[in-house]
C-alpha cells in the first residue's frame, strides 16, 4: 500500500527543459539551386549533342553501305542482264512448245494481236506475271515476292532438335 512518505513528484531536469524549437524546419540543402539549374541545362545540352552525333554516325554508316552498293551495281547488273535474257528465251521457247497445237496461236500475241503496238525495236521488260507464267504458283511467291525468308534467315536455336527434311519446312 502506498504511503505519503513514498510519494515523489516528477520535476523538470536541473536547469530546465531545453528550448523548444517552434521555428519551421527545412531539409538540408544538398545542391544549391544554381547547381541544379546548371546540371539540368548541361545534361540537356549534352543530350542534344549526343543525339545529333548519333544521328550523324547512323547516316554515315548507312551512306558507307550505300556507297559500297553503288560500287557493286554495275557487276550485279551485268550478271542480272545475262540471266534475265536467258530466262526470257526459255519462257518464249516454253510458250512455243505448249501452244504448238493451238491453231492460229502466235507466240507473244493474242492470236496475232500484239500486246504493244508502238514499241518497234525498243526493249520492254515483260511483267512479273508473264515471267512466272510457266512456273508453279508458289514459285512467284517464293522467288519474286521473297517469301521464302523470314526476317531472320540465319541458324536457329532449335536447328538440332529436328531432322533436316523436317526443319526445311518451317522457319
Amino acid at each position, binding site marked *: 500500500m502506498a504511503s505519503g512518505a513514498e510519494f515523489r513528484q516528477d520535476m523538470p531536469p536541473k536547469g530546465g527543459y531545453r528550448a523548444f524549437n517552434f521555428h519551421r524546419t527545412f531539409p538540408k540543402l544538398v545542391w544549391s539551386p544554381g547547381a541544379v539549374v546548371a546540371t539540368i541545362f548541361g545534361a540537356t545540352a549534352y543530350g542534344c549533342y549526343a543525339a545529333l552525333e548519333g544521328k550523324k554516325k547512323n547516316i554515315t554508316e*548507312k551512306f558507307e553501305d550505300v*556507297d559500297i*552498293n553503288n560500287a557493286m551495281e554495275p557487276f550485279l547488273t551485268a550478271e542480272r*542482264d545475262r540471266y534475265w535474257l536467258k530466262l526470257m528465251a526459255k519462257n518464249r521457247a516454253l510458250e512455243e512448245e505448249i501452244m504448238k497445237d493451238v491453231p492460229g496461236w502466235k507466240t507473244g500475241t493474242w492470236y496475232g494481236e500484239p500486246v504493244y503496238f508502238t514499241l518497234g525495236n525498243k*526493249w520492254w521488260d515483260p511483267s512479273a506475271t508473264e515471267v512466272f507464267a510457266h512456273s508453279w504458283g508458289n514459285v512467284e511467291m517464293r522467288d519474286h515476292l521473297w517469301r521464302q525468308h523470314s526476317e531472320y534467315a540465319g541458324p536457329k536455336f532449335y536447328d538440332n532438335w529436328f531432322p533436316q527434311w523436317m526443319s526445311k519446312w518451317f522457319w
Partner: protein
Amino acid sequence: MSLTKDTHLPSDEELTVPQEIVLSTPWLKAVAPYMAKQCEKEANEFMLRRKESEDPRAVLKEGAALTACGVNFLQSLKRSCLPQTQKLAECVDQGSAKLYMSKCHDDQKELDACVEANMNLTRPKLGYFSKLHVYDSATPAPQVKQRDYKAEAAQVLNELPAEYHLRKDYRKYNDWRYNITES
C-alpha cells in the same frame, strides 16, 4: 508473254561468260570498292551504254568485258591479299546484322595497305561511288527515234471522207468516273 518470234533474243553463247563473279555478299562488300575502282572504265562504259540504249541486249559485250575485268582483279587479289580479304569479309559477315562496314574499319585499313602495296590501287574515299562522274564514251549515243504521233493522226483524219461521223460520246480519261466515291 509479250516477246514475239520477231523479238531478237541473244543466243546462249552470247549470254554465257567463262566465269561469273560468284562471291557471297560479305565478300563482295569487302572487295567491291577496289574492284569498281579497278574496272571503272568498263563499268562506266557499260552503265552509260545501258542507260542510253535502255536495252540489255545491246550491252552484252560491255557487260562481259566488265565481268572479265572483275574476275581478273579478283584473281590477282586472291594471289596477293587473300588473308586480309578473308579477315575483312568475316568481319563484315559477323560484325553487324545489316552487313555494315562500320565495325570493320581496322581490317579494312589492313586490306587498304595491302592492296596499295601489291596492286598499286588506292581505295577511293567514302562517297566516291555516290558522286556524279562525267564519262565520255568513244561510242556515240544512239539516236532516239521519236514518232510524230500528231502528224500521223492528222494524216488519218485528213484521209477520212468529208461527211465522216466523228463520235462525240467520249469522255476525257481524267473525267472517267463511274460512281461518286471515285475521285
